[in-house]
């Protein structure tokens, strides 16, 4: 899942003007050569990133033939808004089912990302600042789950949460509940737990890298100048890590918005389904590809400000570093 740690990504935006060292004999030829280097990558991005999104638009703005297979509208002049208005009716109209699902998705994602932050921040803070000589040990343990596949981590919780699993055994033995709870039968809390457990390694990596870059002398100065630990944190560390926190929240929230597998594995009940489940369902149902395309475009539009903010942060960080 390459949505992880985009901290060195800030460097990538350093497309700042070239330093004007005098050694630019026949500059035009030089540029042409560098263009050649990036040409295969650019071609790949055009053919397999830009064109696919155009196809999604064409399908969403197209129609179905009599066999229920989509007829993409390749020409923008022939685009129709029928699928979008169908989606819109399901979003707000009577008997709308997309609207509630969308609200539920946002609620789950907000709760899960905030929980990720609340758990990951103290942990990353401790390891960057207090682990001392054991820092490498803690770092290994912190990034270990990053190397365990998402599906394996979900599988682990499915094992634990079964009606005869260890969680229920513990709860019954401790007399917290008298009957085992069917955790996998459609509990919002289970889905949120799965999201937190699934995405927290990415948050940890972003927070660790960000907090580790804070100049420790500033924090020490806070203590030297008589701030107690809490005020050192709220006055120095927290303000300095604001951008890191935003990056961490985006890096977990954006993929969560398109998550359908966590939900499907840990609940598989319509009452907890998220927007990703709708899109996934439409994709695998004949005749619903245009609506699925329209819905994912709408999701993209909704998430575009967040993505833009992330890209903007990236460029801003590169400018600061330059």
């Amino acid at each position: 899942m390459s949505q992880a740690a985009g901290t060195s990504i800030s460097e990538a935006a350093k497309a700042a003007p070239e330093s004007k060292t005098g050694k630019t004999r026949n500059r035009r030829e030089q540029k042409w050569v560098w263009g050649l280097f990036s040409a295969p990558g650019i071609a790949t991005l055009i053919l397999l990133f830009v064109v696919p999104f155009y196809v999604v638009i064409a399908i969403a703005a197209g129609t179905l033939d009599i066999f229920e297979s989509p007829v993409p509208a390749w020409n923008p002049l022939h685009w129709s808004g029928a699928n979008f208005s169908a989606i819109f009716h399901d979003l707000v109209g009577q008997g709308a089912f997309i609207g509630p699902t969308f609200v539920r998705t946002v609620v789950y994602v907000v709760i899960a990302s905030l929980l990720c932050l609340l758990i990951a921040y103290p942990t990353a803070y401790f390891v960057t600042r207090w682990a001392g000589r054991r820092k490498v040990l803690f770092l290994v343990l912190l990034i270990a789950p990053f190397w365990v596949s998402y599906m394996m981590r979900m599988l682990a919780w499915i094992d634990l949460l079964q009606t005869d699993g260890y969680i229920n055994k513990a709860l019954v033995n401790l007399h917290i509940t008298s009957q085992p709870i069917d955790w996998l039968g459609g509990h919002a809390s289970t889905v949120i737990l799965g999201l937190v457990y699934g995405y927290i390694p990415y948050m940890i990596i972003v927070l660790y890298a960000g907090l580790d870059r804070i100049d420790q002398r500033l924090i020490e100065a806070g203590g030297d100048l008589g701030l107690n630990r809490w005020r050192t944190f709220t006055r120095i560390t927290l303000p300095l890590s604001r951008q890191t926190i935003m990056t961490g929240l985006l890096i977990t929230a954006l993929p969560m918005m398109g998550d359908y597998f966590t939900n499907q594995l840990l609940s598989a009940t319509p009452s907890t389904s998220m927007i990703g489940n709708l899109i996934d369902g439409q994709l695998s149902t004949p005749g619903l590809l245009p609506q699925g395309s329209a819905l994912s475009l709408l999701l993209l539009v909704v998430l575009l400000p967040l993505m833009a903010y992330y890209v903007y942060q990236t460029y801003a960080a590169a400018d600061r570093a330059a």
Partner: protein
Amino acid sequence: MAVDSATRVGDSPSVASGGGAGNALPVAKRRRRPPWRNPWRHAWFLEGFTWLYLIWSIVPIGLAVLFSFNKGKSQSAWQGFSLRWYITDPVNSVLHGAVYHQAVIQTLRLSFLTTVITVPLGVAFAIGINRWRTRTSASFNFVMILSFVVPELIFGVALFSVFSQLYTNIKLGTWAEVLGLVVWNISWPAIIVVARLVSIGPSFEEAAADLGASRFEAVRRVLLPLLSPAIFASAVLVFAGVIDDFVIVDLLSSSASSQPVSVLIYSTTRGGNNGPALNAIATIMLFVSLIVATLGYFAYRWMTRGERGAGSEGALANIAGM
């Protein structure tokens, strides 16, 4: 990576407080702080919290690994150690069940092909983009960063649409999966190599040019050796990222023969009737990832030996994409 300042902090509390008390004895006498007011005391609460987090994040995975060695069918009651789900079971073991070992082979095949294609593509793209500096290169740098943050499901819908509507001569299956994974992962080598290029600067290449090297010679004999740790780290990340990937391979796999491990776990677990064989293939993939990470770590350390700021911490951070 603030390696030196970080290790210093671990030792500094006693030094700093001791020194402070020695220099300002009268002050210390006048106002003896109770231990909980000492700003340099160890953060016991944070340490406890960190350990709780580590237990929560690692124990479920450990249990899932353990149950892959279970003698019985249960994934929640320990019935003794056996290699039944790996080797001995005539039907449902990884060795004898075609579904299972096909999935393992498919995952390794996808990881290998994707890494071999993505890394050269991304490295050349990064070198070109970093030196070309035109409007075109800036736009595609932007597209590349966008591909890093777009939710995987939305990109997956786009890939599914393009392969089912436009590039119809590429059937859903292994090659569609590889092409999708290449684009999804191209930002790793691109971002990491650009970051390294920025820190290297143009002086080495200029020196090579002054000494009579052609541009390609300068890239091959000066730049690529300097970039090799970054290239290597990105290869590790791409390889492990493909093992972890789910959404793209799920949407682009056509039949059981092109299903990698992640998709097999997902589709089998959804029905609820799953046995420890799933834990066994998940465990095998876990060990592949960990071996790749460990080899990556030691190779990275070896490649960066003698560099300023090189160390276990920096190597760990780099192979985790920080």
